């Protein structure tokens, strides 16, 4: 039972530096972005984090992967280095590098093992198959790819070193609807095939319903409701969840 848990967050409070600090103000005032967030994720689970923009979804993700270290509370992880897929595929690939180079980079900087050139090449080809892109794209620059293709590359980069936990921060909200469906399908397939745990962040409750086992609804940095997705959609307890479901057109 205990071994199944891959991620446990208890009473997490996250802070941001106040950037509007005046020159002679007395203290570094901090802004608190998350209040007492707790969650638990089991192996192979898809956990969705939903809520309006600015409610702290991304802040939670950033604290978990370790970009923002200014927090108190506990984040316990079974595996090291969860990987992340960012929201905007137009911004999250280095424009000066080719796709092949970008995919190889996680292997080049791997501290756990040394990858030879042939191993790296083989792994890149494997991943290109997983993310369903032709090998001819390895020689292209990100600017020569469409949004959906870029997001596939981002997912590929995150998967290169076989992480056990993947955090997808609004991976489809910058894409148009048909491409959204394709990327969702890709994520679902990868989840089934590789058995990774995914934290899926989205403001779109329709998308959340498609993919997630459990769902965490947030508002203003606090958890509003947390539980099984299907039950929550059938029988939402909090008013805010009801509102969100109504806005998504799922409930009247």
């Amino acid at each position, binding site marked *: 039972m205990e071994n199944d848990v891959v991620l446990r967050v208890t009473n997490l409070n996250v802070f941001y530096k106040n950037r509007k600090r005046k020159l002679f103000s007395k203290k570094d005032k901090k802004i608190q972005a998350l209040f007492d967030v707790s969650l638990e994720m089991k192996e192979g689970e898809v956990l969705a984090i939903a809520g309006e923009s600015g409610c702290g979804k991304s802040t939670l993700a950033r604290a978990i992967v370790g*970009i923002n270290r200014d927090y108190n509370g506990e984040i316990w992880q079974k595996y090291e280095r969860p990987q992340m897929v960012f*929201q905007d595929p137009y911004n999250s690939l280095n424009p000066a590098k080719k796709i092949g180079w970008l995919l190889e980079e996680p292997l080049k900087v791997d501290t756990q093992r040394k990858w030879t050139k042939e191993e790296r090449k083989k792994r890149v080809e494997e991943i290109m198959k997983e993310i369903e892109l032709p090998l001819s794209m390895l020689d292209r620059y990100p600017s020569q790819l469409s949004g959906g293709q870029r997001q596939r590359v981002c997912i590929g980069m995150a998967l290169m070193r076989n992480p056990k936990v993947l955090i997808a921060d609004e991976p489809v909200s910058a894409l148009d609807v048909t491409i959204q469906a394709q990327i969702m399908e890709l994520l679902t397939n990868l989840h089934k095939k590789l058995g990774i745990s995914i934290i899926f962040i989205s403001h779109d409750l329709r998308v959340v319903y498609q993919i997630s086992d459990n769902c965490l609804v947030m508002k203003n940095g606090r958890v509003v409701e947390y539980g099984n997705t299907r039950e929550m959609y059938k029988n939402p307890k909090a008013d805010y969840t009801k509102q969100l479901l109504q806005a998504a057109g799922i409930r009247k």
Partner: protein
Amino acid sequence: MAKMAKNNIKKFIKDPYLLFGTVIMGMVLLMIIVGCFWMPYEPTKMNAAEKLQGISLKHIMGTDNMGRDVFSRVMYGSRVTLMIAIGTIIIGAGLGTIIGAITGYYGGIIDEVVMRIIDALFAFPSILLALVIVSVFGVGWVQLVVSLGIAFVPSFARIVRGEVLRCKNMDYIENARLIGVSDLRMIFVHILPNIKGVLASSILIGFNNAVLAEAGLSYLGVGSQPPYASLGRMLSDAQQYMFTRPSYVLCPGLVIVLMVLGFAFLGEGIKRWK
């Protein structure tokens, strides 16, 4: 691939800046390279019988007050000037890029301290700074290059710092950090390739300033020493004869103008590329 190269050549020919820049620089470089192997006369050889001659077939740029062939001296002098400019840029752009990248990337207290020192350095006119350094370490080729190089550090440091700051908060850098890229690799492998366009054009503009600064310093008498020529040195020697023999002052001046113009056009062309 072949098609892409063809497109690039087309784009290159259509851009007047790049085309003219390359043609002008090609002419100057050709003269310098030929000058390395063959010159019509020995540039330091004096000939009292042929003082201050005008343009003729025998001396295509005339001769100077000591009967030396001006064209040979221009060939030699532009080589010296170009070498000094290259040395200056290597030192200035190299140090400037490293300082700018590190201060921009780490920020905080390092950034504040180093940038204030750079600001202080920036406050001196570069020629004054070079004069100070030359007066401390003595007159000479190496001192000149080092002092001009240091004088050029601030402008490069600022440009690179600004660009690094712009790139630092992009998602792709955050992504690379998550993958576990070390700081040094991040700066030199992930960030610098993204600012190479800006860097290239500012290096070419820096070349201009270096050519002018060398000419200026030699004109003031702290650059290369007689009897060896550099373009600035020749200008300063020629000024007394400006009205009696204008070709003597015009020819080296013209070569300086061509060099500066060529670098400026190339720099502008690279900035517009894409």
